């Protein structure tokens, strides 16, 4: 824009000189030439303020999963990124999800990162616009809504590993610098293969991938510069959060076998199991007989007062109506217009847990449910989301269950070899090991071996979860959370498989 303005000034200065010395046609041609130059310079100026929006890991979007979103702008003013996702279908019609985020601008390069849930969609359109113009825009169709998880390879020769994956697998080659350090960004990633031939990914990014649920495969002897990754794998294979890290020989067959033996937890099913039974219940209205008795008594009283009270009776009837209205309001109004409850499943291994949170809100008046974090409704509903929170319009006396964006936290319930350990400050109740049964309560700091117990889960909720977890997993209840310690992987210290 500055270049463009400068040229306009230059033209205005030359104008009088042209009028003094030029004749008609040459002057017109000169003006036309200047206009062409100005247009080209204007285009160049627009191209200077570069803007790029990337959905998914390395631009590979996974529908029905949390995806990393990156906006890179250069020499651009502050702008707003707007996404419009239509997740409806032919039967239900359009269901629009809107995402909106402020992207800071300024001189130089600005990078904005976030993780956004992208449902299976009919179309997805996005625009990045500043106050005066659109910096970038684009759209994706239903054919781009690929729900297959990614098989990510970080290698200088990714083609060498293609044979290790199924023909139908979504094999993508990603640069190490494109791997974010956030667990939610790996929601749509099944595996991450690092063979040490390319630039080293950050240890945090690899740990986030594993904790987010990916099977991280470290191939062969990694160079010394990547020793940090080796430590993640421990003695060869190591649980980390919802995933694992394993070291493998540089052989496609070994990779194929490792991938075939990897059975990640169905995180979507685990989240659904958390809200299989409602977390909040609509309040019960006052008993019908009581309400009708009071109504009948009031009606009778007011008629009698008006009939026999004369003029004072009119005043008394008005006062009675006011008092009964206020009393009825106090008696029948539910105490809270919005009821909420939340539950978090902490899916852990190796000291890190992936927090899969759900929040259920039931609103008595029609209202927009606001959650201050990134979340997605578990049913198909139109909603707005962004870094500032999630907003879902809900009809009166209806509830909505929201799955919060996955995050990481230190594990409280851990396997220490073959012993269960409570590393938290509060007792863990109803500890249950799939295949071994009830383990009672584990006090803070306590550690004890798994012992055979009664094979009945303490609650229906735990029972639903045990059906989705591998044998040897430990579950325990704490206030607001259910902790899960996945069993040590085969080959890991304490591993049983």
């Amino acid at each position, binding site marked *: 824009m500055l270049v463009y303005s400068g040229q306009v000034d230059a033209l205005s200065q030359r104008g009088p000189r042209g009028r003094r010395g030029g004749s008609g046609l040459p002057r017109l041609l000169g003006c036309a030439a200047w206009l062409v130059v100005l247009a080209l310079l204007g285009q160049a100026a627009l191209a200077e303020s570069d803007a790029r929006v990337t959905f998914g890991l390395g631009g590979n979007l996974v529908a029905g999963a949390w995806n990393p979103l990156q906006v890179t702008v250069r020499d651009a003013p502050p702008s707003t990124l707007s996404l419009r996702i239509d997740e409806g279908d032919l039967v239900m019609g359009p269901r629009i999800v809107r995402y909106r985020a402020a992207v800071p601008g300024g001189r130089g390069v600005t990078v904005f990162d976030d993780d956004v849930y992208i449902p299976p969609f009919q179309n997805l359109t996005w625009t990045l616009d500043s106050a005066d113009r659109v910096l970038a825009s684009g759209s994706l169709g239903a054919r781009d809504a690929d729900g297959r998880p990614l098989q990510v390879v970080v290698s200088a020769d990714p083609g060498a590993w293609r044979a290790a994956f199924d023909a139908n697998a979504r094999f993508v080659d990603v640069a190490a610098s494109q791997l974010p350090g956030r667990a939610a960004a790996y929601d749509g990633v099944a595996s991450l293969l690092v063979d040490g031939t390319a630039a080293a990914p950050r240890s945090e990014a690899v740990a986030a991938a594993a904790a987010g649920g990916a099977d991280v495969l470290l191939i062969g002897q990694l160079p010394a510069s990547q020793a940090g990754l080796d430590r993640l794998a421990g003695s060869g294979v190591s649980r980390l959060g919802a995933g694992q890290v394993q070291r493998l020989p540089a052989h496609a067959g070994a990779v194929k076998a490792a991938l075939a033996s990897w059975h990640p937890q169905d995180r979507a099913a685990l989240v659904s199991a958390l809200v299989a039974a409602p977390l909040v219940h609509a309040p*019960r209205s006052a008993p019908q007989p009581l309400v009708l008795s009071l*109504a009948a008594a009031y009606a009778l009283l007011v*008629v009698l007062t008006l009939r026999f009270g004369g*003029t004072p009776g009119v005043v008394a009837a008005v006062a009675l109506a006011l008092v009964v*209205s206020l009393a*009825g*309001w106090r008696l029948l109004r539910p105490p809270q217009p919005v009821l909420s409850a939340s539950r978090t499943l902490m899916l852990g291994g190796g000291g890190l847990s992936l927090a899969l949170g759900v929040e259920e809100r039931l609103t008595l008046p029609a209202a927009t449910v606001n959650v201050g974090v990134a979340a997605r409704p578990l049913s198909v509903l139109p909603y707005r989301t962004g870094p500032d929170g999630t907003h879902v319009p809900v009809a009166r006396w209806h509830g909505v269950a929201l799955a919060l964006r996955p995050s990481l936290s230190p594990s409280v319930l851990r396997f220490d070899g073959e012993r269960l350990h409570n590393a938290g400050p509060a007792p863990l109740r109803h500890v249950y090991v799939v295949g071994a049964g009830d383990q009672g309560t584990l006090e803070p700091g306590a550690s004890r071996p798994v012992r055979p117990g009664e094979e009945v889960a303490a609650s229906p909720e735990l029972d639903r979860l045990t059906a989705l977890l591998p044998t040897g997993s430990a579950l325990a209840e704490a206030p607001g959370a259910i902790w899960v310690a996945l069993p040590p992987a085969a080959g890991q210290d304490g591993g049983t498989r």
Partner: protein
Amino acid sequence: MSPLVPVAHRIRSPDMLQVLALFLMVLFFILAIRWPSGAGSNEAWFGLAPTRIALLTLTALGYGAAEAAAPRARRLATAGALLLFVVASAPFDAASYAASYPAAPLWWSATVPFLEVPAYFTMGVGLGRLAARLRVHTFLALLVPLFMVALVWLDVRFGLDVFDPLTAAVHVSWPHAAVMVALAAVGGVVHLRPRGRELEPASPGGDAA
């Protein structure tokens, strides 16, 4: 004399008291069938509020038409008594509103009947006078509900939100409120303005103008 005296006298009259008792009984019946007996959403207000408004406006229209030719004091007393109907039925509205959490604001639900009753009473007076002039006063019992249906039909036919009390009962309608205020004001002027000659009760012939 207190202005409440004629109102108290009017509402004590058998016809009014019976209509009031019937009105409250209908509301009680609606409450009985719409109040939930167990857990779940409470939809009582959505049955009760439109019924209450419909009965209030129909009653006001009917009394207005019937007393078009009555003396001014009598009409004022009747209008006051009809406003007592609004007050007497308010606890039903408040209680069901409290439990139902409707989208319509409470102030709307509480105030709009106080506008509608005088407005429909005024329309009733106009209808009664027109019927008398046209010598069809005998058919007032039929004309009143027909007039009500015609008003609702006008709203539905032309997509308006002006006259229909049922629609106005459950959501805020400023055009409705404006028209009701205007009609109530017209009624106030007509009823309160001293007149040189009070109208005599309508004769069977209906010449009341």
